C-alpha cells in the first residue's frame, strides 16, 4: 500500500489557509518527501468555504485527497471541520479553532448556525483538539496568526515531520518581519 499521508485544512476565505498549506508542504519537502498540494483560487476565495489539501510520501500521485483518507483535518472556524468530515480517515486527528464566523446566509435567516457546534464536533470525532486559536494568537500580538497556532496543534498528528522541519518551513514561508510571531504561534499550538 501507498505510504502517502494526506492533510486537509478548511476554513473561510481570508483566514490564512494557503499559508498553513504552504508551511505544511514545505515541512514535508524539507523532510525529504515527495509533496503535492491543492488550493482554491478565484471566486471561491471571496469569503466562501475553502479547503487546502496536502499529500506527502515516497511517491505522491493525486494532488487531491480522497474521501476517507486524511490523517489529519484542521478547521480554522468552529464548524469548518464538519463540512469536510468525509475526507477524514477513521480515528484521524481533528483540530478545530473554536472561533465562530457567522455566514451571511445565517445573518439573512436562510440557515441556522448550530448552537451546539462543540458537542457536534465531540460527538462526531473521537480524536479532537478543540482550542481557541484566535485567542492564543491575540495573546501573541496578532489574531491573524491563529492559522499557525492551529497548525502547531495539528502537527502532533503528523509524526513523520520533525519540529525542526516545521520551524524551518515557517521561516521560509512567512515574510521576515513575521517569522518570530509565527514561530511562537506554531510552538504555542504544538504545546497545547
Amino acid at each position, binding site marked *: 500500500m*501507498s505510504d502517502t499521508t494526506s492533510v486537509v485544512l478548511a476554513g*473561510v*476565505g481570508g483566514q490564512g489557509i494557503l499559508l498553513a498549506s504552504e508551511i505544511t*508542504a*514545505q515541512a514535508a*519537502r524539507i523532510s525529504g518527501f*515527495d*509533496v*503535492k*498540494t*491543492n*488550493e*482554491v*483560487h*478565484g*471566486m*471561491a*476565495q*471571496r*469569503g*466562501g*468555504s475553502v479547503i487546502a489539501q496536502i499529500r506527502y510520501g515516497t511517491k*505522491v*500521485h*493525486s*494532488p*487531491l485527497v*480522497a*474521501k*476517507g*483518507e486524511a490523517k489529519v483535518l484542521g478547521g480554522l472556524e468552529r*464548524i469548518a471541520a*464538519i*463540512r*469536510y*468530515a*468525509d*475526507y*477524514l*480517515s*477513521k*480515528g*484521524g486527528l481533528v483540530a478545530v479553532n473554536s472561533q465562530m*464566523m*457567522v*455566514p*451571511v*446566509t*445565517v*445573518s*439573512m*435567516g*436562510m*440557515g*441556522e*448556525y*448550530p448552537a451546539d457546534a462543540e458537542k*457536534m464536533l465531540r460527538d*462526531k470525532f473521537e480524536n479532537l483538539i478543540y482550542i481557541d486559536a484566535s485567542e492564543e494568537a491575540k495573546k501573541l500580538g496578532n*489574531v491573524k496568526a491563529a492559522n499557525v497556532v492551529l497548525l502547531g496543534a495539528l502537527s502532533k498528528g503528523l509524526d513523520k515531520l520533525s519540529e525542526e522541519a516545521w520551524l524551518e518551513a515557517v521561516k521560509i514561508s512567512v515574510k521576515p518581519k513575521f517569522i518570530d510571531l509565527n514561530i511562537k504561534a506554531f510552538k504555542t499550538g504544538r504545546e497545547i
Partner: protein
Amino acid sequence: MAELLSGNAAIARGAYEAGAVLAAGYPGTPSTEILENAVKYKDDIYLEWAPNEKVALEVGAAAAMGGTRSIVTMKHVGLNVAADPLMTLAYIGVEGGLVICVADDPGMHSSQNEQDTRNYAKFARLPIFEPTSSQEAKDFVAMAMEVSEKHKTPVLLRSTTRVSHSRSLVELGERQEHKSKGFQKDVQRFVTVPAFSRQMRLKVEKRTAELKAEAESSPANKIEMGDKSLGIIACGITYQYVKEVWPEASVLKLGFSQPWPDDLIGKFAGDVDKLLVVEELDPLLEEHIKAMGIECHGRDAVSGIGELSVSTLRESRAKLEGRPAEKPAYENNADKLPGRPPVLCAGCPHRGVFYALTKHDVVVAGDIGCYSLGAFKPLERLDIILCMGGGVSMAHGLDKAGEKKKVVGIVGDSTFFHSGITGLLDIAYNKGKSTIIVVDNRTTAMTGHQDHPGTGRTLMGEPTVEASIEDIGRACGIKRIRTLNPYDQQATQKALDEEINADEASLVISKAPCILHDRSGVKPALEIDSELCKNCRMCLKLGCPAIEASEGEKPSISSILCTGCGLCRQICKFGAISGGENE
C-alpha cells in the same frame, strides 16, 4: 533540492527555459498565475496583459510568425474569444515556437461553464499536450515548443484546475536562448486570402499526418505495463488518479494526445483483456477508439460531468466490478450546516451600486467578475449573466426587444476594456437607451488584482497611460456620462434615478478602488449601539459579511472584517451605527 511549484509557476518556468521572448495573456482562473509568475523572468521575456484573449493570441502569433518563441495564456472560455485568430493561425502556422496555454476548469470552481479544450485541438487540427504534474507542466512547455517549431504549428497546452493550482516538486533547468532571423516576407505563407488559404488547408492535412507520427513516439506518451486483465488509457491529470485507484493495472498515459497516436493505442488495446478510457469532461478519446473499431469502457463507468478525482474513480471501479462503493468513515452532515457561499467582500465598493439598484424595478444584465456575486441574496440585483462584456450588449438587446422595464447593464473595468467597449459602441450607434454601469474598482479583482489598460501600470511594473472610461464612452458617442462614488449612498441613488429614467443611453462609472487591493481606504470598524438598534435588520439587506446576526439577536459588526466603509451607517434609520467614513 527540487522546488515546490504550482503548475502555473512551472509553465512560466518552462517558457523561460524554452527561450520564449514574449508572453501575453488575459487573466482568468485557473490560468492567471502563469503570467504573474513569468514576471520573474522579465529581463529575458517581454510580458503583457492584453485587453482580451483574442488580442493576446494575435500578439503571440505575430511574434511567432516573426521567428521568435512565445507563449499565450488564457482560461478555457477565453479561448472562445481567441477562437477566430486560432482557426486561421492553424492554417498559417508559425516560424518560431508558439505554445498556447489554456487552463480548463472542470467542476466550474470559478467559471461559467465547463469546456474541454481538447475539442479545439480537434476543431483547429492542432497538437495538444496535457501535463499531469508541475514537473510535466514545465517539461511539456519545452516539448511543445520543439514540436511547434519543427512542424511550424501553434501547439496547445491544456492545463486543468488541479494541474494549475496544485503544487508539486520540480527540478529546474537552464534557459536555452533562441536566435530569430526576424520576419521573412512570404505572401503565400502569411496572407490568408482564399487562393493561398486553399493551399494552406492541404498543408494542414500533411502536417497532421506528420504530427501523428511524432505523437506515436513522443516521450509524453508512455505505456506502463502491469496486470494485463485491465488496461486504462488516461488523459492529463486523470493519470494521477488512475495510479491510485488501479495501482495494479496497465496504463497508457497520453500527454501528447492529439493527433491521437492510433498505433500506440491499438497496440496497447491489443495487449490487454479489457480497455477503460478515463478522460475528464468530453469522451473524445472514447469516441475515437470506438470509431477505430476497438471496444472500450468509458462513460458507462466514468462521469463526464464535473471533475474526476480518486474518490469519483473509486466509485467507477466499484461499478465496473459490480459492487457497491465504500463509504467514508465520517459523514459531513452538510444539510445540518449553514451554507457559506462566496460573497461580496466587506467594504466592497460594488455593494453600494447593487444596493442602490434594489430601489429600482429594472432588469439588470451583468457579466463575469466579482460583481456576479451581486446576483445572490440579499441584493439579488443581477438578472442575467452570459459572458465577459455581455452585460452591455445584452442590456441593449433587451431594450431593443421592447422590454417593458428599464434595462441596466453592468460591466467591470477590466471586462469593459476586454469586450464591453464594442457593446457600448453598438448602443450609441444603434440609438439604444439602456443605462450602462461600469463598476470600476481599478483592478481585475476576481482573479487576484491584475493590471489592465485603466490602471496606469503594465504587467512588468512600468507606469503607462491610464485609459479613461469616460473618454472612451464619449468617443463611442454616448452623451450622458457621469462618475459617482458608490460609498455615497444618497448621491448614488440620485444619479441612478436620473440616468435610468433618462430617455437616452447613459454611461455611469461607479468608481472606488477594490478594498482588498488598495487598503488606503480602510477606516476603523463601525459599531452598532444596541440601545439605539431596533432590530429592524435593514443593515442586513446589504449582505455585508462583517454584519453578523444570529437568530433572534440584534446585529453586530465584526471588528476583524469591517473596513469602515460606512455604507451601513447610511442605511440605518435609527442612527444606531457609528464610526467609519466622514466621522
